[in-house]
């Protein structure tokens, strides 16, 4: 069964913005699918609202729509493009849900568009919990006992039947949003109510708790001839009860005998056949009772998933790529295995190493959020590590996380030195982002392995491994250095840094000694087959063993350091840049070497670079690769802060850094050197000081004048950045701050209230500087640039101001000797330009700008860094588009109950979307819709703003009134609006008693909320914002945002939303 001849064009739906539960893995899978299908000669049409993806690169698909991911918008695309088929299985839950909607509404039938991969009945059977359960019963498999509730009455009835504890799972939400477990009655009612709210179809599943059971996943593939193979088995270290996305997972499964594994495999085959997934990959989750081996089926995803991305990276088997080929007619045995070349893809990979994935969390970003894990996913990224043993793999994974951990440190940071065993016992029993460290600590302090297991329900096999690592610490601290010392401890995964910490010496000393004994890592290949066949793809990892398989050649090569695990502030945008660097340099004839440890990404696809090292991005690990490969240069400026931090140490170790020098980077990052630079150029910046102590901070802030903007130096994403109004606030901040940054001082700047913020991205070859784009933020300065919406080209800046921004950017680039990319953030305050920040590296906005102007800036920058000139590359002048592109941010607030939605200088967004159209208003409207903030076209808008914002109300309320919106406001705001001559109803604040605004929101009487926080009454306004969020209402917490929304609504009402391919924007 070769390629189907009746298919000429395929529509692929991406997964939209990066959110918790849906990250780069779907860019990875979608990109693979597009490439594979285009190789088959098919015409590919793509829709994805996320500009930071590789898949939305205009050269990837034939037609690329960066449009809101709504069924209505996609229906328009289908109407324009008439695709023969829709592939819904590589874009996550978002794509699957949209496909269901398009199929059920008849759009697909109307345009004769066939669902390929999985048909509607199969999708529904897998997704609908009742149908799924019935299907499992039909094929004789067990599921946890459960029932569906659509109301509290249903739920109570079910509780009486099944008893507590019960798991509450809302239907059709991403990554288990709204999911929880209820052990007590009152807990049960509150959580059911929340779950019903979060489900778009108002449905929750109440399920017998299998908490504490062992959890496994199988990645399964099926082709149209009904051949089924298992690609990978995964065992969760965290037992049932923690969302698998938040669990530490290990591949392959470690604690199953063959008999037990085959029961699971047989079940998986039966499940994929019964559900009827025609072709492609599925993920099936199982739970096993550790006492009896009883197995129950938990769920199935009839599509590629985060786990399938992990499985692909863990085995070298590219699930999404193969799934795409299968969907258009091929059989598994007709597709070759890329890695071995000689054998077919119809087999089950076997691996000869252990893979460990640890999720990355950012609880510290969300004040009020508790670091506690459960059935709802909360992690924002993950790191994967490969080692020859679990112990090595686990310790490599810890240092891949980039949370300042290089092994099982005692973690005194988060707990008192004298923490009692009682406290530790509690922590070991409670799933959290730091549980593994607590577990190690508990074992270190003498809690028995048996007790650790009883408390945590983590399988004794994993506990033993951690216990052995902890038990080895003593020897690692005391035994004299020798060859056998290093062979022993390095093979267990101990980093030089951890050994240094244990011995109280410097890392360099450990490294020198290790080298003197000739103990260096070797590199082994990931080859799908346990070395049974020769591997042709250099996909490598390090270990301490005998034989090295790296076989580096003597070509001119460039090594690119990736960004590590996704986190808030450093995500897909940087991976995009790294991928572009690799592609451009490869095309220019260089050999490219990628180093990264994030399994979700496109950069860790072995297809992207000539060589891939799946390794932690620490100095030790990166240097080892550089020494083995001896590249002509290393690119550190594309992967965000992670590789940037390595620039200076690598340069010192003699590794050539390409592009802008580490010294220039330091000049921009080091506050004192930066001040000198700005002064030298005669430019302006907000008055600021550098404080190394509380006294310096208090005195400095006094001199500058409150409010001040305060942050630790050398951080990304505005981590721990705050606007401080007075000395008391300053003292509170300083008390906590030195935790955020141990080695770097605090920066305190004047806060320019209400200033317009502008981002400028530019590229320089050392001589010529060309502006990539000027982005005007919608929100005023003070809100992190990663969180604000922005427009390109700028909408309100005068030509003179723009000229000045361009000139200043060029001056800065030249002075710093930038070779590559530079990003400058400015504030325009009372007509004057202030420099806020200079980043001589790829910025988060590079993919957005590249897509807005139609120029691949990261590619050009990589070539420039390798020695090319912009003139030779044909990019010598700024390209100002005739259309408008708006970037909007997407936030994870719904995941963290009790967290406020107010924006500030600390970045909180996980992802971004782009709206593109001929006017700002429509582009903004599209961006809002794409960010799931559905702009209402009518209804009642609730307004409550602080006094200082009231003068800005006029255009907003007038605009809304003109369009027939009803206005409702709290007393003060209502009075103000009435004075403006608009009708406005008054409603109580929550404190004023029912019926109040929160009641109105809950009753569904409000269509949108405009609420700017009042410093005094935040508790009241908090409940408004939180309720709006929970009821999925569009809400605006800035006046600028509200004003843009009014313009957007007007555009939507008058013109309606139209779609246009990126290729058309850039053609003319």
């Amino acid at each position, binding site marked *: 069964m070769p390629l189907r001849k009746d298919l000429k064009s395929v529509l692929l739906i991406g997964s939209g913005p990066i959110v918790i539960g849906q990250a780069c893995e779907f860019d990875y899978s979608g990109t693979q699918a597009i490439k594979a299908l285009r190789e088959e000669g098919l015409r590919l049409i793509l829709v994805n609202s996320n500009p930071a993806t590789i898949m939305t690169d205009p050269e990837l698909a034939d037609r690329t729509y960066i449009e809101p991911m709504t069924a209505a918008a996609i229906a328009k695309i289908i109407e324009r493009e008439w695709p023969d088929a829709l592939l819904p299985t590589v874009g996550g839950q978002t794509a699957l849900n949209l496909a269901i909607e398009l199929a059920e509404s008849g759009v697909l039938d109307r345009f004769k568009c066939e669902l390929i991969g999985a048909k509607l009945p199969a999708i529904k059977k897998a997704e609908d919990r009742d149908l799924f359960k019935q299907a499992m019963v039909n094929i004789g498999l067990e599921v946890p006992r459960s029932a569906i509730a659509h109301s509290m009455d249903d739920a109570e009835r079910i509780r009486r039947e099944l008893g507590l504890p019960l798991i509450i799972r809302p239907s059709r939400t991403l990554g288990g949003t709204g999911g929880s477990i209820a052990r007590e009655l009152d807990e049960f009612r509150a959580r059911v109510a929340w779950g019903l709210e979060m489900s778009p179809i108002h449905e929750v599943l109440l399920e017998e708790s299998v908490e504490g059971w062992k959890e496994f996943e199988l990645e399964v593939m099926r082709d149209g*001839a*009904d*051949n089924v*193979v*298992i690609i990978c*088995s995964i065992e969760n270290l965290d037992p049932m009860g923690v969302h698998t996305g938040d669990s530490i997972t290990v591949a*392959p*499964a*470690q*604690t*199953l*005998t*063959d*008999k*037990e*594994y*085959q*029961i699971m*495999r*047989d079940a998986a085959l039966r499940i994929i056949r019964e559900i009827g997934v025609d072709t492609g990959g599925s993920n099936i989750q199982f739970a096993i009772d*550790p*006492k*009896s*081996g*009883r*197995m129950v089926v938990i769920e199935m995803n009839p599509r590629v998933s985060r786990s399938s991305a992990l499985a692909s990276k863990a085995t070298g088997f590219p699930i999404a790529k193969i799934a795409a080929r299968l969907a258009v007619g091929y059989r*598994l*045995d007709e597709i070759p295995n890329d890695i071995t070349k*000689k*054998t*077919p893809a*119809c*087999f*089950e*990979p*076997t*691996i*000869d*190493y*252990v893979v460990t994935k640890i999720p990355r969390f950012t609880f510290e970003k969300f004040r009020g959020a508790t670091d506690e894990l459960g059935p709802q996913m909360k992690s924002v990224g993950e790191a994967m590590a490969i080692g*020859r*043993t*679990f112990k090595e793999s686990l310790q490599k994974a810890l240092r891949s996380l980039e949370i300042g951990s290089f092994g099982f440190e005692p973690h005194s940071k988060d707990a008192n030195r004298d923490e009692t065993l009682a406290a530790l016992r509690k922590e070991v029993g409670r799933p959290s982002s730091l549980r593994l460290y607590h577990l190690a600590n508990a074992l270190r302090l003498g809690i028995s392995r048996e007790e650790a297991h009883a408390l945590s329900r983590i*399988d*004794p*096999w994993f506990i*033993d491994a951690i216990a052995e690592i902890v038990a080895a610490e003593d020897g690692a601290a005391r035994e004299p250095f020798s060859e056998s010392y290093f062979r022993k401890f390095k093979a267990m995964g101990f980093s030089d840094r951890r050994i240094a910490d244990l011995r109280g010496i410097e890392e360099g000393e450990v490294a020198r000694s290790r080298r003197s004994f000739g103990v260096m890592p070797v590199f*082994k290949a990931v080859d799908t*087959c*346990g*070395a*049974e*066949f*020769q591997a042709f793809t250099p996909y490598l990892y390090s270990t301490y*063993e*005998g*034989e090295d*398989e790296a076989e580096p050649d003597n070509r001119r090569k460039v090594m690119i350091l990736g960004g590590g695990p996704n986190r808030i502030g450093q995500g897909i945008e940087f991976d995009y840049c790294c991928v572009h660097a690799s592609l451009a340099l490869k095309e220019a004839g260089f050999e490219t070497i990628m180093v990264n440890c994030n399994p979700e990404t496109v950069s860790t696809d072995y297809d992207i670079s000539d060589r891939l090292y799946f390794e932690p991005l620490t100095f030790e690990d990166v240097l080892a690769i550089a020494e083995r490969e001896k590249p002509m240069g290393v690119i550190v400026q594309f992967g965000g802060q992670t590789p940037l931090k390595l620039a200076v140490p690598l340069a010192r170790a003699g590794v050539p850094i390409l592009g802008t020098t580490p010294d220039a980077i330091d000049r921009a990052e080091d506050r004192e050197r930066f001040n000198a630079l700005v002064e030298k150029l005669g430019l302006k910046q907000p008055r600021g000081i550098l404080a190394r102590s509380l006294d310096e901070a208090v005195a400095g802030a006094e001199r500058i004048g409150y409010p001040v903007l305060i942050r630790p130096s050398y951080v990304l994403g505005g981590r721990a950045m705050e606007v401080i109004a007075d000395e008391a606030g300053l003292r509170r901040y300083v008390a906590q701050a030195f935790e955020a940054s141990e080695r770097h001082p605090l920066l305190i700047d004047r806060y320019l209230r209400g200033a317009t913020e502008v981002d400028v991205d530019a590229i320089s070859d050392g001589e010529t500087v060309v502006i990539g784009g000027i982005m005007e933020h919608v929100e005023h300065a003070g809100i992190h640039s990663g969180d604000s919406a922005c427009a390109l080209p700028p909408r309100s800046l005068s030509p003179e101001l723009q000229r000045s921004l361009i000139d200043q950017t060029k001056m800065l680039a030249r002075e710093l000797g930038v070779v590559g990319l530079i990003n400058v953030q400015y504030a325009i305050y009372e007509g004057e330009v202030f420099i806020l920040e200079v980043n001589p590296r790829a910025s988060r906005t590079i993919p957005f700008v590249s897509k807005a102007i139609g120029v691949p800036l990261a590619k050009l920058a990589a070539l420039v860094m390798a020695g090319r000139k912009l003139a030779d590359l044909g990019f010598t002048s700024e390209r100002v588009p005739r259309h408008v592109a708006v970037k909007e941010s997407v936030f994870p607030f719904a995941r963290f109950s009790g967290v406020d939605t107010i924006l500030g200088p600390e970045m909180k967004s996980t992802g971004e979307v782009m709206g593109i159209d001929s006017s700002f208003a429509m582009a903004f409207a599209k961006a809002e819709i794409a960010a799931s903030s559905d702009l209402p076209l009518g209804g009642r808008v609730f307004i409550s703003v602080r006094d200082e914002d009231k003068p800005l109300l006029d255009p907003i309320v007038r605009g809304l009134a003109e369009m027939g919106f009803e206005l409702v406001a709290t007393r003060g705001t209502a009075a103000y609006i009435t004075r403006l001559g608009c009708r406005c109803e008054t409603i109580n604040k929550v404190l004023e008693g029912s019926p109040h605004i929160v009641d109105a929101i809950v009753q569904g009487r409000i269509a949108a909320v405009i609420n700017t926080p009042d410093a005094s009454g935040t508790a009241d306004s908090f409940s408004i914002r939180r309720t709006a969020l929970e009821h999925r209402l569009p809400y605006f917490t800035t006046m600028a945002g509200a004003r843009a929304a009014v313009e957007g609504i007007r555009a939507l009402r008058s013109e309606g939303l139209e779609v246009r391919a990126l290729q058309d924007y850039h053609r003319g």
Partner: protein
Amino acid sequence: MAVRPNREAILALADGRTFRGRAFGTIGEAVGEVVFNTAMTGYQEVLTDPSYRGQMVCMTYPEIGNTGVNREDVESRRVYVEGFIIKECCERPSNWRSELSLHEYLEQAGVVGIEGIDTRALVRHIRTHGAQEAVLSSIDLEPESLIRKAKASPGLIGKDLVAEVTCAEAYDWELSDWELGRGYRAMSKEEMRDAPRVVALDYGIKLNILRRLVASGFRVRVMPAHSTADQILAENPDGVFLSNGPGDPAALPYAHKAVAGVLGKKPVFGICLGHQILGLALGGQTYKLDFGHHGANHPVLDLRTTRVEITSQNHGFAVDTESLKGRAELSHLNLNDRTVEGMRGQGVPFFSVQYHPEASPGPHDSSYLFRRFRKMVEMFPRYGADTLDRLMAEETVNANG
């Protein structure tokens, strides 16, 4: 838990390559051909598989022993591998059925193990230079001496290893498949009353083949490998099964003769060595593969249905079907290296596979072959020489219907 001695061990290959590691299992010395197995689960089944007689096995998956050892997951009554070569031996197994650690088990079995070596380097070496004789020792730590011993080892070719593993006397087998929570089910006399009888020739038979035969509805009589055709026919079985086993199939002329004597008279099904013996009994040839197939992930194409089965494999020799033209037709093909995986009689009712449909360890994709055998035995009295053609036609109808 037994305290393990911290002792060095060396593996020396005949071509001079040596690997140093830590000893586990019994302290001693072993000689055998080194092969590698790529299955990620099922080390206990591997250890007890009689086909490994004369061989030392290197597991490519590095963490071995995690689930310990239990009394159920055995493929014979003892450990058959000569030596066990792994990366990391788990000291504290974790599984609800575990009774012993791997180390304890091998120590009790008197089998030498080595851990802590670069098993991947060993596998790559074997892949490049072929499977070869080796010595594994924790008593002689002199590499040169070990290499000499390895070189002196005669190897498998031409050696009758079957004689060392087959049963001494015929016996009946009554246990069926394993079920979670129930263990192996014994068939009752009632259930077995009308079941057809099969003689299973034990060349080193894996117990799971016997269990699968019982589960497929056979009464099973196991007979020693050197049973003659007359002895077999004297049992008046409804079918004859030829088992797996160790070593060189060409070294077993008595088996070729016996099989030739039953072919055509009884329906025959062969697995692995049984398949090779069938080939030789038909006058064909076998040859040694460079490093064989040992694992649980080999894709095999059923040429008639064009379906792919993921199979369990363990063999170092293969049948040359070219040498069997007109007597047998190729039925299954290995998709990795296009070697013969199965054949079917032409005008004579037999079929055989090179791989292991009984799995254990490995996937259950090929269990249909036991059903096919049962069907063939049922149809034989009616259709005789035409049985196989009829059977194939019927299967096609079923597949289409």
